[in-house]
Protein backbone atom coordinates (compact mmCIF):
# COMPACT_ATOMS: atom_id res chain seq x y z
CA UNK A 1 0.00 0.00 0.00
CA UNK A 2 1.63 3.20 -1.12
CA UNK A 3 0.74 6.54 0.36
CA UNK A 4 0.27 8.61 -2.78
CA UNK A 5 -3.28 9.97 -2.88
CA UNK A 6 -5.62 8.32 -5.34
CA UNK A 7 -8.58 10.59 -4.64
CA UNK A 8 -8.16 14.14 -3.46
CA UNK A 9 -10.97 16.59 -2.80
CA UNK A 10 -10.23 20.13 -1.79
CA UNK A 11 -12.99 22.58 -1.07
CA UNK A 12 -15.49 20.76 -3.26
CA UNK A 13 -18.91 22.37 -3.22
CA UNK A 14 -21.94 21.69 -5.34
CA UNK A 15 -24.97 23.88 -5.75
CA UNK A 16 -27.95 22.72 -7.72
CA UNK A 17 -29.82 25.39 -9.59
CA UNK A 18 -33.40 25.42 -8.45
CA UNK A 19 -35.82 26.94 -10.91
CA UNK A 20 -39.20 28.19 -9.81
CA UNK A 21 -40.49 27.60 -13.31
CA UNK A 22 -39.31 25.14 -15.94
CA UNK A 23 -38.95 27.86 -18.56
CA UNK A 24 -36.53 29.74 -16.33
CA UNK A 25 -33.92 27.18 -17.31
CA UNK A 26 -34.09 28.34 -20.91
CA UNK A 27 -34.11 31.99 -19.86
CA UNK A 28 -30.97 31.28 -17.88
CA UNK A 29 -29.26 29.90 -20.98
CA UNK A 30 -30.36 32.81 -23.14
CA UNK A 31 -30.05 35.71 -20.72
CA UNK A 32 -27.85 34.20 -18.01
CA UNK A 33 -25.18 36.83 -18.53
CA UNK A 34 -27.42 39.62 -17.29
CA UNK A 35 -29.69 38.04 -14.75
CA UNK A 36 -29.95 34.99 -12.54
CA UNK A 37 -33.14 32.97 -12.86
CA UNK A 38 -32.49 30.35 -10.20
CA UNK A 39 -31.91 29.89 -6.52
CA UNK A 40 -28.94 27.88 -5.41
CA UNK A 41 -29.25 24.87 -3.21
CA UNK A 42 -25.92 23.81 -1.80
CA UNK A 43 -25.84 20.07 -1.30
CA UNK A 44 -22.08 19.91 -0.77
CA UNK A 45 -20.09 22.54 1.06
CA UNK A 46 -16.36 22.61 1.21
CA UNK A 47 -15.64 18.87 1.23
CA UNK A 48 -12.00 18.06 1.93
CA UNK A 49 -10.43 14.63 2.11
CA UNK A 50 -7.87 12.41 0.48
CA UNK A 51 -7.93 8.69 -0.13
CA UNK A 52 -4.64 6.93 -0.56
CA UNK A 53 -3.96 4.36 -3.21
CA UNK A 54 -5.14 0.94 -2.11
CA UNK A 55 -7.31 2.29 0.66
CA UNK A 56 -10.90 1.20 1.29
CA UNK A 57 -12.99 4.11 2.45
CA UNK A 58 -16.64 3.89 3.40
CA UNK A 59 -19.05 6.81 3.41
CA UNK A 60 -21.92 7.04 5.85
CA UNK A 61 -24.50 9.74 6.28
CA UNK A 62 -28.22 10.33 6.33
CA UNK A 63 -30.41 10.58 3.24
CA UNK A 64 -29.75 13.88 1.55
CA UNK A 65 -26.35 14.36 3.15
CA UNK A 66 -24.76 14.59 -0.30
CA UNK A 67 -23.24 11.10 -0.54
CA UNK A 68 -24.50 10.28 -4.01
CA UNK A 69 -23.71 13.75 -5.32
CA UNK A 70 -20.17 13.40 -4.03
CA UNK A 71 -19.74 10.07 -5.80
CA UNK A 72 -21.23 11.51 -9.00
CA UNK A 73 -18.74 14.36 -8.91
CA UNK A 74 -15.81 11.98 -8.42
CA UNK A 75 -17.02 9.87 -11.35
CA UNK A 76 -17.26 12.94 -13.55
CA UNK A 77 -21.01 12.63 -14.10
CA UNK A 78 -21.76 16.02 -12.61
CA UNK A 79 -19.41 18.91 -12.04
CA UNK A 80 -18.57 20.68 -8.79
CA UNK A 81 -19.65 24.31 -8.52
CA UNK A 82 -16.42 25.16 -6.77
CA UNK A 83 -13.33 23.46 -5.43
CA UNK A 84 -11.08 20.93 -7.07
CA UNK A 85 -10.74 17.19 -7.12
CA UNK A 86 -8.49 14.63 -8.72
CA UNK A 87 -9.05 10.94 -9.21
CA UNK A 88 -6.05 8.92 -10.32
CA UNK A 89 -6.67 6.22 -12.90
CA UNK A 90 -9.64 4.55 -14.50
CA UNK A 91 -12.85 4.60 -12.50
CA UNK A 92 -15.45 1.84 -12.38
CA UNK A 93 -18.62 3.21 -10.80
CA UNK A 94 -21.31 0.91 -9.49
CA UNK A 95 -23.99 3.54 -9.03
CA UNK A 96 -27.78 3.30 -9.02
CA UNK A 97 -27.91 -0.19 -10.29
CA UNK A 98 -28.67 -1.22 -13.78
CA UNK A 99 -30.16 2.10 -14.74
CA UNK A 100 -27.84 2.27 -17.71
CA UNK A 101 -29.21 -1.00 -19.05
CA UNK A 102 -31.65 -1.43 -21.89
CA UNK A 103 -34.42 -3.86 -20.96
CA UNK A 104 -34.85 -5.01 -24.56
CA UNK A 105 -31.27 -6.19 -24.90
CA UNK A 106 -29.87 -9.34 -23.38
CA UNK A 107 -27.50 -9.36 -20.45
CA UNK A 108 -24.67 -10.11 -22.84
CA UNK A 109 -25.45 -7.15 -25.11
CA UNK A 110 -25.85 -4.80 -22.17
CA UNK A 111 -22.59 -6.05 -20.70
CA UNK A 112 -20.81 -5.19 -23.96
CA UNK A 113 -22.14 -1.64 -23.89
CA UNK A 114 -21.48 -1.27 -20.18
CA UNK A 115 -17.88 -2.37 -20.69
CA UNK A 116 -17.50 0.06 -23.61
CA UNK A 117 -18.75 2.91 -21.40
CA UNK A 118 -16.03 2.03 -18.92
CA UNK A 119 -13.49 2.39 -21.70
CA UNK A 120 -12.78 -1.20 -22.75
CA UNK A 121 -11.98 -1.82 -26.39
CA UNK A 122 -13.93 -4.33 -28.43
CA UNK A 123 -11.04 -6.79 -28.26
CA UNK A 124 -10.86 -6.51 -24.48
CA UNK A 125 -14.61 -6.99 -24.24
CA UNK A 126 -14.44 -10.09 -26.45
CA UNK A 127 -11.77 -11.56 -24.22
CA UNK A 128 -13.66 -10.89 -21.01
CA UNK A 129 -17.30 -11.37 -21.85
CA UNK A 130 -17.25 -15.04 -20.80
CA UNK A 131 -15.55 -14.14 -17.52
CA UNK A 132 -18.20 -11.49 -16.93
CA UNK A 133 -20.91 -14.09 -17.56
CA UNK A 134 -19.20 -16.52 -15.19
CA UNK A 135 -18.79 -13.88 -12.49
CA UNK A 136 -22.43 -12.82 -12.69
CA UNK A 137 -23.56 -16.47 -12.27
CA UNK A 138 -26.98 -16.00 -13.74
CA UNK A 139 -26.75 -18.96 -16.13
CA UNK A 140 -28.90 -18.91 -19.25
CA UNK A 141 -30.54 -15.64 -18.17
CA UNK A 142 -27.45 -13.93 -19.55
CA UNK A 143 -28.92 -14.51 -23.04
CA UNK A 144 -32.39 -13.23 -22.11
CA UNK A 145 -33.70 -9.65 -22.38
CA UNK A 146 -32.87 -7.75 -19.24
CA UNK A 147 -36.45 -6.74 -18.56
CA UNK A 148 -36.96 -10.30 -17.33
CA UNK A 149 -34.28 -9.90 -14.64
CA UNK A 150 -34.79 -9.49 -10.93
CA UNK A 151 -33.05 -6.63 -9.13
CA UNK A 152 -30.48 -9.03 -7.76
CA UNK A 153 -29.64 -10.34 -11.21
CA UNK A 154 -29.21 -6.81 -12.57
CA UNK A 155 -26.88 -6.08 -9.68
CA UNK A 156 -24.87 -9.19 -10.49
CA UNK A 157 -24.37 -8.17 -14.10
CA UNK A 158 -23.52 -4.57 -13.14
CA UNK A 159 -20.97 -5.69 -10.59
CA UNK A 160 -19.52 -8.30 -12.93
CA UNK A 161 -18.88 -5.65 -15.60
CA UNK A 162 -17.11 -3.34 -13.16
CA UNK A 163 -15.08 -6.23 -11.78
CA UNK A 164 -13.62 -6.82 -15.26
CA UNK A 165 -12.90 -3.25 -16.23
CA UNK A 166 -9.27 -3.09 -15.06
CA UNK A 167 -10.22 -0.15 -12.92
CA UNK A 168 -7.90 1.64 -10.54
CA UNK A 169 -10.70 3.12 -8.50
CA UNK A 170 -13.95 1.37 -7.62
CA UNK A 171 -16.83 3.61 -6.59
CA UNK A 172 -19.81 1.76 -5.13
CA UNK A 173 -23.12 3.34 -4.19
CA UNK A 174 -25.22 0.97 -2.10
CA UNK A 175 -25.08 -1.48 -4.91
CA UNK A 176 -24.51 -4.69 -3.09
CA UNK A 177 -27.48 -4.70 -0.76
CA UNK A 178 -29.84 -6.21 -3.34
CA UNK A 179 -27.73 -9.29 -4.05
CA UNK A 180 -28.25 -12.50 -2.11
CA UNK A 181 -25.94 -13.71 0.64
CA UNK A 182 -23.76 -15.74 -1.70
CA UNK A 183 -23.26 -12.92 -4.14
CA UNK A 184 -22.59 -10.40 -1.38
CA UNK A 185 -19.83 -12.62 -0.08
CA UNK A 186 -18.42 -12.96 -3.55
CA UNK A 187 -18.40 -9.16 -3.86
CA UNK A 188 -16.72 -8.81 -0.50
CA UNK A 189 -14.04 -11.24 -1.56
CA UNK A 190 -13.62 -9.33 -4.78
CA UNK A 191 -13.37 -6.01 -2.96
CA UNK A 192 -10.77 -7.42 -0.58
CA UNK A 193 -8.80 -8.70 -3.56
CA UNK A 194 -9.24 -5.47 -5.50
CA UNK A 195 -7.92 -3.27 -2.72
CA UNK A 196 -4.49 -4.87 -3.03
CA UNK A 197 -3.84 -2.64 -6.01
CA UNK A 198 -6.89 -0.45 -6.28
CA UNK A 199 -8.73 2.15 -4.31
CA UNK A 200 -12.32 1.74 -3.18
CA UNK A 201 -14.85 4.33 -2.12
CA UNK A 202 -18.23 3.01 -1.10
CA UNK A 203 -21.47 4.32 0.29
CA UNK A 204 -23.56 1.99 2.38
CA UNK A 205 -26.16 2.01 5.10
CA UNK A 206 -24.95 -1.41 6.20
CA UNK A 207 -22.67 -0.24 8.99
CA UNK A 208 -21.38 -3.70 9.91
CA UNK A 209 -20.41 -4.27 6.31
CA UNK A 210 -18.42 -1.04 6.26
CA UNK A 211 -16.81 -1.75 9.60
CA UNK A 212 -15.58 -5.13 8.39
CA UNK A 213 -14.35 -4.01 5.04
CA UNK A 214 -13.06 -0.47 5.30
CA UNK A 215 -9.78 1.04 6.42
CA UNK A 216 -11.42 4.36 7.12
CA UNK A 217 -14.94 5.75 7.25
CA UNK A 218 -16.07 9.21 6.24
CA UNK A 219 -19.18 10.66 7.84
CA UNK A 220 -20.90 13.17 5.60
CA UNK A 221 -23.48 15.45 7.14
CA UNK A 222 -25.32 18.36 5.51
CA UNK A 223 -22.75 18.52 2.75
CA UNK A 224 -19.64 18.65 4.92
CA UNK A 225 -17.28 16.01 6.26
CA UNK A 226 -18.23 15.71 9.91
CA UNK A 227 -15.67 13.09 10.80
CA UNK A 228 -13.22 10.82 9.05
CA UNK A 229 -11.09 8.09 10.54
CA UNK A 230 -11.02 4.66 12.19
CA UNK A 231 -14.21 2.73 11.16
CA UNK A 232 -15.10 1.49 14.66
CA UNK A 233 -14.87 4.97 16.16
CA UNK A 234 -16.75 6.84 13.39
CA UNK A 235 -19.48 4.25 13.15
CA UNK A 236 -19.96 4.31 16.93
CA UNK A 237 -20.21 8.12 16.80
CA UNK A 238 -22.61 7.94 13.88
CA UNK A 239 -24.82 5.40 15.63
CA UNK A 240 -24.81 7.50 18.79
CA UNK A 241 -25.87 10.58 16.83
CA UNK A 242 -28.68 8.67 15.14
CA UNK A 243 -29.94 7.35 18.46
CA UNK A 244 -29.74 10.79 20.02
CA UNK A 245 -31.76 12.23 17.15
CA UNK A 246 -34.33 9.47 17.38
CA UNK A 247 -34.74 10.06 21.10
CA UNK A 248 -35.11 13.76 20.50
CA UNK A 249 -37.74 13.14 17.84
CA UNK A 250 -39.75 10.75 19.98
CA UNK A 251 -39.25 12.96 23.04
CA UNK A 252 -40.56 15.98 21.20
CA UNK A 253 -43.56 14.11 19.83
Amino acid at each position, binding site marked *: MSSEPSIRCSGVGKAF*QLYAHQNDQLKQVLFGLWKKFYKEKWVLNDVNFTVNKGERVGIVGRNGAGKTTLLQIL*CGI*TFPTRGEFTVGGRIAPILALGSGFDG*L*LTGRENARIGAAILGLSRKEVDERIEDIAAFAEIGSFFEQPMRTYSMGMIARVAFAICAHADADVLIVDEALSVGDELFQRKCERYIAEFSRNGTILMVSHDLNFLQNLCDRVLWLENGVVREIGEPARIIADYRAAMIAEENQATGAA
Partner: protein
Amino acid sequence: MLASIPAEYVAPFERAWRHRELIRAVVRREFISRFRGSLLGPAWAVLSPLIMLLTYTTLFSITVPQLSAGMSITDYASGIFIGLIVFNLFSELAYRAPVLLHEHVNFVKRSIFPSETIAWTATIRAFTYAGVAFGVYIAFRLLTAGSVPLTIVLTPLLVIPFFLFILGVVWFLMALGAFTRDVAHIMASIVPVLMFATPIFYRVDQIAQMAPSAAVWLRLNVVGDYIEMLRAVALDGEIPNVVGYLALVAVSYAAFLGGYRFFMRYKAVIVDVI
Protein backbone atom coordinates in the same frame (compact mmCIF):
# COMPACT_ATOMS: atom_id res chain seq x y z
CA MET B 1 -0.02 21.37 -42.45
CA LEU B 2 -2.07 19.21 -40.12
CA ALA B 3 0.03 20.16 -37.15
CA SER B 4 -0.74 23.83 -37.73
CA ILE B 5 -4.50 23.38 -37.25
CA PRO B 6 -5.43 24.71 -33.82
CA ALA B 7 -6.58 21.96 -31.45
CA GLU B 8 -10.00 23.50 -30.94
CA TYR B 9 -10.93 22.88 -34.58
CA VAL B 10 -10.37 19.15 -34.33
CA ALA B 11 -11.42 18.64 -30.69
CA PRO B 12 -14.83 17.12 -31.58
CA PHE B 13 -13.10 14.49 -33.74
CA GLU B 14 -10.58 13.65 -31.05
CA ARG B 15 -13.27 13.05 -28.48
CA ALA B 16 -15.30 10.94 -30.87
CA TRP B 17 -12.21 8.91 -31.74
CA ARG B 18 -11.47 8.31 -28.09
CA HIS B 19 -14.99 7.00 -27.59
CA ARG B 20 -15.21 5.15 -30.91
CA GLU B 21 -15.77 1.75 -29.30
CA LEU B 22 -18.62 3.16 -27.26
CA ILE B 23 -20.19 4.86 -30.28
CA ARG B 24 -19.93 1.60 -32.18
CA ALA B 25 -21.52 -0.37 -29.35
CA VAL B 26 -24.39 2.10 -28.95
CA VAL B 27 -25.09 2.29 -32.69
CA ARG B 28 -25.24 -1.50 -32.70
CA ARG B 29 -27.62 -1.42 -29.76
CA GLU B 30 -29.89 1.05 -31.56
CA PHE B 31 -30.18 -1.25 -34.56
CA ILE B 32 -30.69 -4.35 -32.46
CA SER B 33 -33.44 -2.83 -30.34
CA ARG B 34 -35.10 -1.28 -33.37
CA PHE B 35 -35.43 -4.57 -35.23
CA ARG B 36 -35.99 -6.90 -32.28
CA GLY B 37 -39.55 -8.14 -32.13
CA SER B 38 -40.25 -7.09 -35.72
CA LEU B 39 -40.97 -9.82 -38.23
CA LEU B 40 -39.33 -8.23 -41.26
CA GLY B 41 -36.51 -6.66 -39.27
CA PRO B 42 -33.88 -4.89 -41.39
CA ALA B 43 -36.03 -5.31 -44.49
CA TRP B 44 -37.98 -2.27 -43.25
CA ALA B 45 -34.95 -0.12 -43.96
CA VAL B 46 -35.47 -0.95 -47.64
CA LEU B 47 -39.27 -1.20 -47.62
CA SER B 48 -39.96 2.20 -46.05
CA PRO B 49 -38.09 4.24 -48.66
CA LEU B 50 -39.51 2.03 -51.41
CA ILE B 51 -43.08 2.70 -50.30
CA MET B 52 -42.28 6.39 -49.99
CA LEU B 53 -40.73 6.47 -53.45
CA LEU B 54 -43.72 4.79 -55.09
CA THR B 55 -46.26 6.97 -53.30
CA TYR B 56 -44.62 10.28 -54.09
CA THR B 57 -43.78 9.30 -57.63
CA THR B 58 -47.35 8.34 -58.39
CA LEU B 59 -48.92 11.22 -56.53
CA PHE B 60 -46.76 14.09 -57.69
CA SER B 61 -46.21 13.02 -61.23
CA ILE B 62 -49.96 12.94 -61.75
CA THR B 63 -51.01 15.98 -59.78
CA VAL B 64 -48.22 18.49 -60.37
CA PRO B 65 -47.28 18.27 -64.02
CA GLN B 66 -46.11 21.91 -64.15
CA LEU B 67 -43.27 21.15 -61.76
CA SER B 68 -42.07 18.26 -63.84
CA ALA B 69 -42.14 20.34 -67.01
CA GLY B 70 -39.34 19.35 -69.33
CA MET B 71 -38.54 16.23 -67.37
CA SER B 72 -39.66 12.66 -67.77
CA ILE B 73 -41.78 11.31 -64.96
CA THR B 74 -39.05 9.00 -63.71
CA ASP B 75 -36.49 11.82 -63.73
CA TYR B 76 -38.85 14.05 -61.82
CA ALA B 77 -39.64 11.25 -59.37
CA SER B 78 -35.93 10.56 -58.91
CA GLY B 79 -35.40 14.23 -58.11
CA ILE B 80 -38.17 14.13 -55.52
CA PHE B 81 -36.75 10.97 -54.06
CA ILE B 82 -33.28 12.46 -53.59
CA GLY B 83 -34.88 15.49 -51.98
CA LEU B 84 -36.90 13.32 -49.65
CA ILE B 85 -33.97 11.15 -48.61
CA VAL B 86 -31.99 14.20 -47.55
CA PHE B 87 -34.90 16.05 -46.01
CA ASN B 88 -36.23 13.03 -44.11
CA LEU B 89 -32.79 12.53 -42.66
CA PHE B 90 -32.78 16.12 -41.51
CA SER B 91 -36.35 16.11 -40.19
CA GLU B 92 -35.99 12.82 -38.33
CA LEU B 93 -33.05 14.22 -36.41
CA ALA B 94 -34.64 17.65 -35.97
CA TYR B 95 -37.61 15.95 -34.29
CA ARG B 96 -35.49 13.56 -32.30
CA ALA B 97 -32.57 15.75 -31.19
CA PRO B 98 -34.45 17.84 -28.60
CA VAL B 99 -35.55 14.69 -26.76
CA LEU B 100 -32.33 12.72 -27.19
CA LEU B 101 -30.97 13.54 -23.75
CA HIS B 102 -34.31 12.78 -22.14
CA GLU B 103 -34.29 9.40 -23.88
CA HIS B 104 -30.82 8.64 -22.59
CA VAL B 105 -31.33 10.12 -19.15
CA ASN B 106 -30.24 6.92 -17.41
CA PHE B 107 -26.98 6.85 -19.30
CA VAL B 108 -26.30 10.51 -18.75
CA LYS B 109 -27.18 10.74 -15.08
CA ARG B 110 -26.22 7.35 -13.77
CA SER B 111 -23.08 6.26 -15.51
CA ILE B 112 -19.88 7.79 -16.76
CA PHE B 113 -21.29 8.32 -20.19
CA PRO B 114 -19.84 10.97 -22.50
CA SER B 115 -23.16 12.56 -23.48
CA GLU B 116 -21.78 14.29 -26.58
CA THR B 117 -21.44 10.87 -28.23
CA ILE B 118 -25.25 10.55 -28.31
CA ALA B 119 -25.27 13.02 -31.21
CA TRP B 120 -22.81 10.83 -33.10
CA THR B 121 -24.80 7.65 -32.62
CA ALA B 122 -28.12 9.27 -33.58
CA THR B 123 -26.58 10.87 -36.66
CA ILE B 124 -24.78 7.72 -37.73
CA ARG B 125 -28.01 5.80 -37.42
CA ALA B 126 -29.96 8.30 -39.51
CA PHE B 127 -27.24 8.37 -42.19
CA THR B 128 -27.23 4.58 -42.33
CA TYR B 129 -30.94 4.58 -43.13
CA ALA B 130 -30.44 7.34 -45.66
CA GLY B 131 -27.63 5.28 -47.18
CA VAL B 132 -29.96 2.32 -47.60
CA ALA B 133 -32.57 4.61 -49.16
CA PHE B 134 -29.90 5.95 -51.51
CA GLY B 135 -29.17 2.36 -52.51
CA VAL B 136 -32.87 1.99 -53.33
CA TYR B 137 -32.59 5.16 -55.44
CA ILE B 138 -29.63 3.75 -57.39
CA ALA B 139 -31.53 0.51 -58.00
CA PHE B 140 -34.56 2.53 -59.13
CA ARG B 141 -32.40 4.58 -61.50
CA LEU B 142 -30.74 1.51 -62.96
CA LEU B 143 -34.14 -0.08 -63.56
CA THR B 144 -35.86 2.95 -65.07
CA ALA B 145 -33.07 4.89 -66.76
CA GLY B 146 -30.62 2.07 -67.27
CA SER B 147 -27.68 3.91 -65.75
CA VAL B 148 -26.55 6.39 -63.14
CA PRO B 149 -24.27 9.32 -64.00
CA LEU B 150 -20.56 8.89 -63.40
CA THR B 151 -20.53 11.98 -61.19
CA ILE B 152 -22.31 9.90 -58.53
CA VAL B 153 -18.83 8.97 -57.27
CA LEU B 154 -18.64 12.53 -55.91
CA THR B 155 -21.46 11.78 -53.45
CA PRO B 156 -19.11 11.25 -50.47
CA LEU B 157 -17.82 14.80 -50.96
CA LEU B 158 -21.35 15.97 -50.17
CA VAL B 159 -22.13 13.39 -47.51
CA ILE B 160 -19.17 14.26 -45.29
CA PRO B 161 -19.83 18.00 -44.87
CA PHE B 162 -23.57 17.33 -44.63
CA PHE B 163 -22.90 14.82 -41.85
CA LEU B 164 -20.91 17.44 -39.95
CA PHE B 165 -23.60 20.05 -40.48
CA ILE B 166 -26.31 17.72 -39.16
CA LEU B 167 -24.13 16.74 -36.22
CA GLY B 168 -23.75 20.40 -35.27
CA VAL B 169 -27.51 20.94 -35.51
CA VAL B 170 -28.14 17.85 -33.37
CA TRP B 171 -25.75 19.06 -30.65
CA PHE B 172 -27.39 22.45 -30.61
CA LEU B 173 -30.96 21.11 -30.46
CA MET B 174 -29.98 18.44 -27.94
CA ALA B 175 -28.61 21.01 -25.51
CA LEU B 176 -31.51 23.40 -26.03
CA GLY B 177 -34.04 20.58 -25.73
CA ALA B 178 -32.62 19.58 -22.36
CA PHE B 179 -33.59 22.96 -20.94
CA THR B 180 -37.11 23.15 -22.22
CA ARG B 181 -39.51 20.74 -23.83
CA ASP B 182 -40.70 23.63 -26.00
CA VAL B 183 -37.90 22.96 -28.45
CA ALA B 184 -39.52 19.67 -29.47
CA HIS B 185 -42.82 21.49 -30.09
CA ILE B 186 -41.10 24.27 -31.98
CA MET B 187 -39.40 21.76 -34.26
CA ALA B 188 -42.72 19.99 -34.83
CA SER B 189 -44.16 23.24 -36.17
CA ILE B 190 -41.08 24.50 -38.03
CA VAL B 191 -40.05 21.34 -39.90
CA PRO B 192 -43.24 21.06 -42.04
CA VAL B 193 -42.81 24.72 -43.02
CA LEU B 194 -39.16 24.11 -43.82
CA MET B 195 -40.21 21.23 -46.00
CA PHE B 196 -41.86 23.64 -48.44
CA ALA B 197 -38.96 26.07 -48.20
CA THR B 198 -36.70 23.24 -49.33
CA PRO B 199 -36.39 22.30 -53.00
CA ILE B 200 -37.82 18.81 -52.68
CA PHE B 201 -40.75 18.87 -55.10
CA TYR B 202 -39.30 21.61 -57.22
CA ARG B 203 -35.89 22.98 -58.14
CA VAL B 204 -34.50 26.34 -57.18
CA ASP B 205 -33.94 27.14 -60.87
CA GLN B 206 -37.66 26.84 -61.54
CA ILE B 207 -38.39 29.26 -58.70
CA ALA B 208 -35.69 31.59 -59.97
CA GLN B 209 -37.56 31.93 -63.25
CA MET B 210 -40.83 32.69 -61.49
CA ALA B 211 -39.66 34.74 -58.51
CA PRO B 212 -35.95 35.62 -58.52
CA SER B 213 -36.01 37.24 -55.08
CA ALA B 214 -37.52 34.13 -53.45
CA ALA B 215 -34.79 31.99 -54.98
CA VAL B 216 -32.12 34.02 -53.21
CA TRP B 217 -33.74 33.22 -49.88
CA LEU B 218 -34.10 29.57 -50.81
CA ARG B 219 -30.38 29.30 -51.40
CA LEU B 220 -29.80 30.20 -47.77
CA ASN B 221 -31.37 26.87 -46.87
CA VAL B 222 -28.37 24.63 -46.29
CA VAL B 223 -30.38 21.41 -46.50
CA GLY B 224 -31.83 22.60 -49.81
CA ASP B 225 -28.37 23.37 -51.15
CA TYR B 226 -27.24 19.86 -50.35
CA ILE B 227 -30.31 18.44 -52.09
CA GLU B 228 -29.61 20.50 -55.20
CA MET B 229 -25.97 19.43 -55.26
CA LEU B 230 -26.78 15.79 -54.66
CA ARG B 231 -29.26 15.97 -57.54
CA ALA B 232 -26.58 17.46 -59.71
CA VAL B 233 -24.10 14.65 -59.09
CA ALA B 234 -26.46 11.69 -58.67
CA LEU B 235 -29.15 12.52 -61.23
CA ASP B 236 -28.18 15.22 -63.71
CA GLY B 237 -24.55 14.19 -64.03
CA GLU B 238 -23.28 17.71 -63.42
CA ILE B 239 -20.46 18.96 -61.25
CA PRO B 240 -21.72 21.51 -58.71
CA ASN B 241 -20.43 25.06 -58.64
CA VAL B 242 -17.09 24.82 -56.84
CA VAL B 243 -17.35 28.19 -55.08
CA GLY B 244 -20.86 27.36 -53.92
CA TYR B 245 -19.64 23.99 -52.71
CA LEU B 246 -16.73 25.44 -50.75
CA ALA B 247 -19.03 28.02 -49.16
CA LEU B 248 -21.38 25.22 -48.17
CA VAL B 249 -18.53 23.23 -46.64
CA ALA B 250 -17.43 26.29 -44.68
CA VAL B 251 -20.96 26.94 -43.38
CA SER B 252 -21.38 23.27 -42.46
CA TYR B 253 -18.11 23.15 -40.61
CA ALA B 254 -18.99 26.32 -38.73
CA ALA B 255 -22.32 24.76 -37.72
CA PHE B 256 -20.50 21.62 -36.62
CA LEU B 257 -18.01 23.48 -34.43
CA GLY B 258 -20.63 25.91 -33.14
CA GLY B 259 -23.02 23.11 -32.18
CA TYR B 260 -20.25 21.19 -30.45
CA ARG B 261 -19.08 24.19 -28.47
CA PHE B 262 -22.62 25.11 -27.48
CA PHE B 263 -23.22 21.59 -26.23
CA MET B 264 -19.93 21.29 -24.37
CA ARG B 265 -20.42 24.67 -22.78
CA TYR B 266 -23.72 23.66 -21.23
CA LYS B 267 -22.89 19.98 -20.71
CA ALA B 268 -22.14 20.47 -17.01
CA VAL B 269 -25.46 22.23 -16.40
CA ILE B 270 -27.48 19.84 -18.55
CA VAL B 271 -26.72 16.85 -16.31
CA ASP B 272 -28.34 18.69 -13.41
CA VAL B 273 -31.44 19.96 -15.24
CA ILE B 274 -32.71 16.90 -17.13
